[in-house]
């Protein structure tokens, strides 16, 4: 179906698509699958629906992405969260928490499709043989920040111990999380029924997460 007839049949659809897709701009992400261990999920993303404006910190980006299956026929819309997660001991990865909650049977939380750290070569070595095989290979070290390492070097001047603590520099690692539900922001609700149902579901989900003693 070409774009014109699509616009005629579904007024507003093109606009909705254009919120998440910019022509000729597509990025392919390869994320370790959750359902099938050792494999990668291919997600195509274009325009983020949320971009963090802060240059430091997690730098969260949210995308609507399309998962393309190996047979290139099926596809589904997913939500991709791209963050620079804090890589210190005691801070769990979001995907691991989600997974444990699912194992405990918590409902009203998004189903996990794939998650994992982004590696330096970002699956580049898999490019040529992508369609035939999505088997995960050892793809090397994760993309990480270096400022935290450099900050401890001897040649860094003007820093006393106290000041160094104040800087609060911690290592970060590039991380992607793919979940199965892609939704619209809360403020786009169509009526009070939808708003109440939506918030009620979110409340139940949060309540069950807290009340489930999964530790």
């Amino acid at each position, binding site marked *: 179906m070409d774009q014109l007839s699509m616009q005629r049949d579904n007024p507003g659809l093109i606009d909705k698509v254009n919120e998440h897709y910019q022509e000729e701009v597509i990025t392919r992400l390869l994320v370790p699958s959750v359902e099938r261990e050792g494999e990668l999920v291919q997600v195509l993303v274009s*325009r983020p629906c949320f971009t963090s404006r802060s240059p430091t910190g997690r730098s969260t980006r949210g995308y609507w992405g399309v998962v393309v299956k190996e047979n290139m026929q099926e596809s589904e819309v997913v939500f991709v969260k791209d963050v620079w997660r804090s890589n210190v001991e005691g801070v769990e990865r979001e995907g691991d928490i989600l997974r444990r909650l699912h194992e405990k049977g918590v409902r009203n939380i998004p189903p996990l499709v794939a998650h994992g750290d982004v590696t330096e070569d970002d699956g580049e070595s898999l490019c040529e043989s992508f369609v035939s095989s999505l088997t995960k290979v050892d793809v090397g070290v994760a993309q990480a920040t270096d400022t935290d390492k450099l900050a401890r070097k001897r040649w860094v*001047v003007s*820093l006393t111990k106290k000041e160094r603590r104040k800087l609060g520099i911690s290592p970060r690692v590039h991380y992607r999380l793919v979940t199965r539900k892609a939704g619209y922001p809360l403020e786009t609700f169509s009526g009070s029924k939808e708003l109440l149902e939506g918030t009620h579901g979110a409340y139940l989900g949060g309540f069950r997460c807290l009340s489930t003693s999964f530790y």
Partner: protein
Amino acid sequence: MQLRLRCSHGTGPVVSPDDDFFTDPAGLENTTPLPLCFGDGDDSDEDEEEEDGEGEEEEEELKYLDRIMYSWGSRWPHSFDDGQDGEDAHRPYRFTADPTLDIDNRRVAALGQNAAYAEILMTRQFRTCVFSLSISGRFVRFLRWDREGVVVSQAVDYKADLSLPFSGPSPLPRTRNVVGTSPLSPRVMQRTKNSFVTELPSTSWINSACKGTTRA
């Protein structure tokens, strides 16, 4: 950019190309993922703690830095000047505690411009880090920005130090698997455009770059 600068601390900048640079210009055999390293080449001191004992003056200096770096927050491990007053008139980033000094304001502006460029690059593209140069007269500083902060080198006199090694950029800083650049989300785009254009009137290229993303 596989580049190793050896800046000796306290006696002024001494820059010499690392041996690796000539034997392995592309850095292919170098196992460290760090594309640019400012240091004395000795990694054994990585976790060495500096001694306390810097004076009040240093404290003041840092506070001032905190205030001006709105975007990178207080995340500033810096290899600022080696304290040779009088000589550093040409150098960027010799901040004092007095914000009314004109020379300081200009340095802050120059640094802010660098920060704005790095910020835009990291917002619009997938990057693990961004390099930038800050040049003032005969002196150049190398800056390396990533998601946790920025590292600034000492000022290097590039006319005197002709041995300063340069090489082509390696593909490391940029994440691959990308067709085109990563556009901003529609909501952020307008805000970004407004704020940057009003903050930096001289940077017309930012304006045109932002325009490029609004076709929809």
